[in-house]
Every structure is written in structure tokens, then in C-alpha cells.
């Protein structure tokens, strides 16, 4: 059983080998076949629509963006969990009503405390 499973991954392995061979081949080929011209610093700069691509490698972002992103993910996940919950709700109501309701109510309650916390701490104020 294990053997057949491993053989199923053979195409993936072949693709991987091909990708490595191809990328190395292109690099080696361009060194071997390419014409050696005069190199100047201008020629070596990457082409960026005529602009000088010079600057900091990392630009500083305001921490506010991260805060918004985190809060977004938090409440996004809430919705992600609500959908499957709603889908199985009717079915599980028959077998285990306490669990299906209690689980979501406690989850929402914890998130609600988090919402109040973020609100009072001013996480939703942009300035």
C-alpha cells in the first residue's frame, strides 16, 4: 500500500527535477552563449520604467495598518467559523443541542470581550 502511494508522487518529483534542471540550464546557457558586452553601472541597474530604482529595501509602514489588518483577520475568522456552524446547526441540534449552541455562544462571547477591549483601547480610532 505504501509503495503505490509513493509512486503516485513520482510526477511531482519529475516536475521538481525538471524545474531545477531548466532554471540552471537557462543560467548556464546564457553564460555560455550570451555575447560579452561592455558593462557599465547604468546597464547593470534593473529596468524600472525609466525611474531610478534606488531607495530603502524596506519602507516603514505605520503600525496602524498592522492593527487594522489584525482586527480584520480576527473578525474575518469569526465569520469563517460561523458559516460551517450554520451549515451543521440543524443536524446537530437533534443530537447535541448544548454543544452546538454553547460552543458558538462562548466563542462569540470571547470575541465580544476582545471587541470591547479594542474599542476602549482606541484601536478603531485612526488618529
Amino acid at each position: 500500500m505504501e509503495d503505490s502511494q509513493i509512486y503516485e508522487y513520482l510526477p511531482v518529483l519529475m516536475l521538481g527535477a525538471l524545474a531545477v534542471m531548466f532554471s540552471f540550464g537557462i543560467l548556464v546557457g546564457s553564460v555560455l552563449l550570451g555575447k560579452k558586452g561592455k558593462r557599465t553601472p547604468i546597464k547593470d541597474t534593473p529596468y524600472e520604467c525609466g525611474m531610478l530604482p534606488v531607495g530603502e529595501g524596506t519602507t516603514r509602514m505605520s503600525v496602524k495598518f498592522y492593527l487594522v489588518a489584525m482586527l480584520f483577520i480576527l473578525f474575518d475568522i469569526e465569520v469563517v467559523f460561523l458559516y460551517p456552524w450554520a451549515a451543521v446547526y440543524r443536524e446537530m441540534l437533534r443530537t447535541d443541542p448544548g454543544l452546538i449552541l454553547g460552543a458558538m455562544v462562548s466563542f462569540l462571547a470571547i470575541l465580544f470581550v476582545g471587541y470591547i477591549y479594542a474599542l476602549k483601547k482606541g484601536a478603531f480610532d485612526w488618529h
Partner: protein
Amino acid sequence: MNLLLLVHEWSVIALALALLLADLWLPLSSKRKLGYAAVAGLVVILLYGIIKPPPYGTTFGGMYVMDGLALFFKRFFISAAILVLLMSVEFADHIETGIAEYYALILFALSGMLFASSANDFSLLFVSLELITVTFYVLTSFQRARLASLEAGVKYLIIGALSTGFTVFGIALVYGLGKTLNFGQLAAVAGQFKSNPVFLFGLLLVLTGLGFKIAAFPFQIWAPDVYQGAPSPTTAFLAVGSKAAGFVLLLRVLFTAVPQIALEWSRLLIVISAITILYGNLCAIPQRNIKRLLGYSSIAHAGYMLLGISALSAAGQSAVLYYLSGYLVTVLGAFTVICIALQSRPAERDEGGPSHGGLDFNEDISSLAGLNQRSPLLAATITLALVSLAGIPPLAGFLGKFLLFKAALAQAPAQHAYYWLVAIAIAGVVISIYYYFGLIRAIYWSKDPADLSPIRTSIPIRISLCACIIGMLYLGIRPNLFVKFAADAIQKLTS
């Protein structure tokens, strides 16, 4: 679904949420006192759980189990959190903002540990481990203005994420073959995968993840740096709570999920245990930073406890539980003293650490000089704690080591490697006496200590220190009660 089974968990979570909400409306001056409220809440939860123990059983479709082992560890974790919270109230001056969040995060980590002690399923194992680890990422880097703390946080984050990756990958492999995540159901099928390399590899990866938690060789690399850089209460909680959570999960996985395979892994466990003991003890010798030294010593203690697990017997497992109880009072006593004694020193730059910000404490061993004149209670507590860690009778550490070695020796006639393991462990104990007594010498026999101003200790701290001293002495002199607790707790595990 039985809510009574989860009484510890939901009450701790409710307490943490209440703390967060209370923080929003309280004036800044009284926020520090919230720690005492949290301690009071935990004491009530602990006592309620003792007076009215929750019924045994399983819930969440067999994911969550409440048995003797779970109950033992739940009480263990809550007691640890109480002592750590008392410590953090003293530490509050060094946390610039958000002391209430610090308390709440300790409680959230505690809830993860409570879930871990009841994990009977790989998914609950993973979720509870993550709840502990993610909370600790924040707790380790809580002193944002201090470089060492940030460095510890980043190191813990990277290594922690790596170990999580190992765990998840291992769980996926085990699930792929065993077709179940439940420990009980896995035990029924694990026997047929005894020689299946994919299954064994998956299991090994899960153990790797747990090895990071307990800081066993070769996954110990993060421990000294993180222990040194993190705020002292975090270090204490990391050394006791997080490590014990790793051990309870290790016990469950090895002896509930795959008992047949665990029987064949004695040699692996013996080797890991022996190297961990030697590594921890040898590397601790040259350390000058107290917290770093205790970091290495905690690696060595993980090795001693692995020795008990490698014995693969009920006696070994109950010895691990007993050792952990002694370890709790000993290490938390020592860290409480360090937390108080070091913060009353003027901040200086010390050498030998990874890197330092301007706000660093002097954590060199020499800063303990003259502690017995500055505060006899602090000096007595840390001395007893170090003597107990070194394993000298009549303290808790001695009896714990005695039980561990006895359990290993009982297995030795069948496999002679145990003789070697115990010999190495005894060599480790002898080495550890050297560096523990170096600390004690610094406390009592230092020449011209720089600072002899008395240290004021608050009443709650005095109570917690006395509790630690009584615990160390009680566990060492009258062990019968706790030996019985430990034996009862692992009863169901091995049956």
C-alpha cells in the same frame, strides 16, 4: 456535554476576560492590584476543585478527558500560576504599560495548560500547545523597551514556529496512516504500524515538537537565551508551566496513544535523557548570569524527568509527577527570590549575555552577594531551593531524584543501559552540586558585598516564599501523601 468536567477551564478563562474588562475602567494606579484579584480568583478555583472535584469522564466526542492525571496537572498548573502572579505583582514596576494584560496573558496561558492536561486527541493537543506557546511569545517580549526581552521573544517565536511545524507535520503523517486523531482509538491500531517507517517518522516529529517544549536535547537550543532575556515571572512560568505541559502531553502520547511503540523506544529515550542531563549540567558550570544558569539547570532537570519516562513503568511515570511537584515549589521559590533581589539592584550593564539594552538588570551571580544580610528570608528560600535542585536530603529534589533512579534501576536487570543512565544521572547530580553551591557561596560568603541595604518584601510575597519552603520540606520529609497522589494519577494511563 458536561460543563462540570470543564469547570477549571471555563472559570479560568472567565477570570482572564473579567480581568481584561476590569482593566479598561480602572484607574492606572490600581491596575497593579488586579494581580491580587487574579490570585484570589485562582485560589477560589483551586479550592473549589479540591472540595468538589469534577466527575471523571470524556467530552467533545472523546477529545477531552478528565481523569486522575488531568486533575493532578490542573491543580499543579493553577498553583504554579498563583505563585507566578504574586511574583508579577512585584515585577509590575518593570513593565511600562499593560500590566493588566500581563496578568491576563498568564491566565490565558494557564487555560492552555489546563486543556493540555486533558488532551486525549491530537487536535486538542495541538490547539492547547499553541494556546500556551502563542501566549508565551507575548509574555517573553513584554518588556518592549529592553533589547534582551525582545531578542528572547524573537528567538522563542522562530524556534516555536519551527517546532509547531514539526508537530503538525507529524500529526498529519500519524493521521494519514492511523485514520484517527483520538489517542484511545489510535492505541487500538498503533500496534500494526510498529515497523511502518512513515508512522514512526510522524510520531518522532510529534515528539520533536514536545521535545522543544520540555527543552530536551537536541531541541534545547532556545532555552538559555529565552530564560535569560524574558521577564523573570515569564521565565518562571516557562520553566514550570510550559515544561510540565510538555511532560503531560508526552505521557499521554507515549502511554495512551502508542503504548506498544513506546515499549520499543526505551533506548532512544535513554540516550536523549543521558545527553540532556550531561549537556544541561556541563553548560551550567561556566555561567555567570543567574537566569541563564537556571535555564541550563532546567534543561538538566528535563533530562532527569525523561529518565523517569524512559523507565516505561508506572513507577517511573509517578516519579515524574512527584518530581514535577517538587520542582514547582523549588523553581518558583528560587525565581521569586531572583525577581525581588535583582530588581532592587541599580541597573548596570553586565557582560556575557546575548545583547543588552539600556534598561538591563544586573543579573550576575555577584549581585546576590550579602543577600543573607539584606533579607534572611530571601536568602533562606533560595538556598533551600538550590539545595533541593541539587538533590540533597531531606528536600523535595532529593526524594524526587531517588524515586526516578529507583524506577530506572528496577528496569535495569532487563536492559543494562539503565545502569549507565543512572550512573550518568548521578554524575550529573555531582556536577550540579558544584554550580548550585557556587550560588550559595555568593550569597553567604562573598567578600565585600557592594550593597547591604535591606530588601523590603511585601506580605503576599512572604506568604508565597513560606509556602515554597514548606512545600520543599514537606515533599522531602513526608512524601507518602504526594507519592500516593502521583500513583493514583497515573493509574488510568497505564491500564
